[in-house]
């Protein structure tokens, strides 16, 4: 369930990096849940992507969950500062004035929302088909400061994302492949990730989960003994076994995948 959040972050970063406009300006500086403080000399613009409020209401009011309608806030912090030097903005793709700064943040936000909700790249398509169901709400707030002597503006973009539920474990579903232990949708996302830290994280998760072997449910053995139809005679298990009155049956689950 919560690994759907991991899948969301990993694939959302892939989708954002795949967007040509975002890639041109941000140049891969999209951080997954960065904790460390930013040095003000670090290159900007940057995006920090986190999954915050996460709630799930059971689909069945009667039985409760799982499965749940899993809704998670995907928060993207887009930060950028202005450079003052003449010509610097051309060399570095940065901006020189407050007006351009705000416009550039608007541009990056526009592309980020587009990449996650309606992007046409294969990465965005995988995000929409495997991880997210829809984005029912978005919110964007602004923060700006020049306290460190540099003009910095931040857009805090919050996308409420309805996630596709992890598949309930089907007895006939025997996953295969290098990420077989991961639940969906992380398994699909992991398989599509390029070589790098995202994939390495999935390898570690997969290894951590392989301690619990997943044995396919192929059938059940049932042993029963016919009893006389008389309420006065109580069943006697030891007697049935001793007299050989028991019958062994095997119920096999048909393999529908074949």
């Amino acid at each position, binding site marked *: 369930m919560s690994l759907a959040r991991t899948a969301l972050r990993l694939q959302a970063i892939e989708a954002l990096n795949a967007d040509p406009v975002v890639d041109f300006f941000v140049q*891969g*500086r999209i951080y997954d849940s960065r904790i*460390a403080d930013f*040095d003000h000399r670090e290159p900007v613009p940057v995006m920090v992507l986190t999954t915050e409020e996460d709630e799930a209401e059971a689909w069945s009011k009667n039985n409760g969950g799982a499965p749940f309608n899993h809704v998670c806030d995907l928060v993207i912090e887009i930060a950028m500062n202005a450079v003052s030097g003449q010509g610097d903005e051309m060399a570095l793709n940065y901006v020189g004035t407050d007006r351009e700064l705000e416009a550039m943040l608007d541009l990056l936000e526009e592309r980020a929302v587009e990449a996650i909700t309606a992007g046409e790249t294969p990465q965005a398509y995988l995000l929409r088909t495997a991880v997210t169901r829809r984005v029912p709400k978005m919110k964007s707030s602004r923060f700006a400061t020049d306290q460190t002597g540099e003009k910095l503006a931040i857009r805090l973009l919050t996308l409420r994302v309805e996630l596709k539920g992890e598949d309930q474990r089907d007895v006939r579903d025997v996953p295969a492949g290098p990420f077989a232990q991961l639940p969906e949708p992380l398994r699909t996302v992991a398989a599509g990730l*390029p070589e790098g*830290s995202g994939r390495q994280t999935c390898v570690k998760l997969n290894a951590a989960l392989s301690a619990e072997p997943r044995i396919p449910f192929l059938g059940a053995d049932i042993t029963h003994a016919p009893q006389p139809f008389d309420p006065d005679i109580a069943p006697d298990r030891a007697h049935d076994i001793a007299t050989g009155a028991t019958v062994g049956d095997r119920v096999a689950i048909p393999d529908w995948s074949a």
Partner: protein
Amino acid sequence: MPSLFAALASAASATVDAVFAEGFTIEGRARPATTAGRVDVNAGTVPSTIRVSYPFQGVWIAAGAVLHAHGRAMTDSTTRGVVAEQPMVDVDLHSLLERPHLGDIVRRDDTGERFTVTRFKAVDFGRALVMLAEIR
């Protein structure tokens, strides 16, 4: 032309180091590249192939001041420390080959302790502070 005081401070810097400084080693760290040719900002650091490891001299500063969060009439021993001053190295800019980057590793040669660089602050008169965080 620098002021007389700046010139004197600069000259004194070497003397300060001769009296107080000890040996450190800095190791440049970098993040690997992605398949798309960008820096993989979410990966762990690996030894940099460009910025080499080199020894330098600096003055070790660890004030050890700890601020405890507590109300009135409570002793420090009953509360946790919440803020402590970072350890840092006061260096002459000439002893560094380049500006240390966030995430570089500094080893204190005398004790073998290892730290990561969290901040680099140029202070006046040709000296700078390399602020560190202990690697446990």
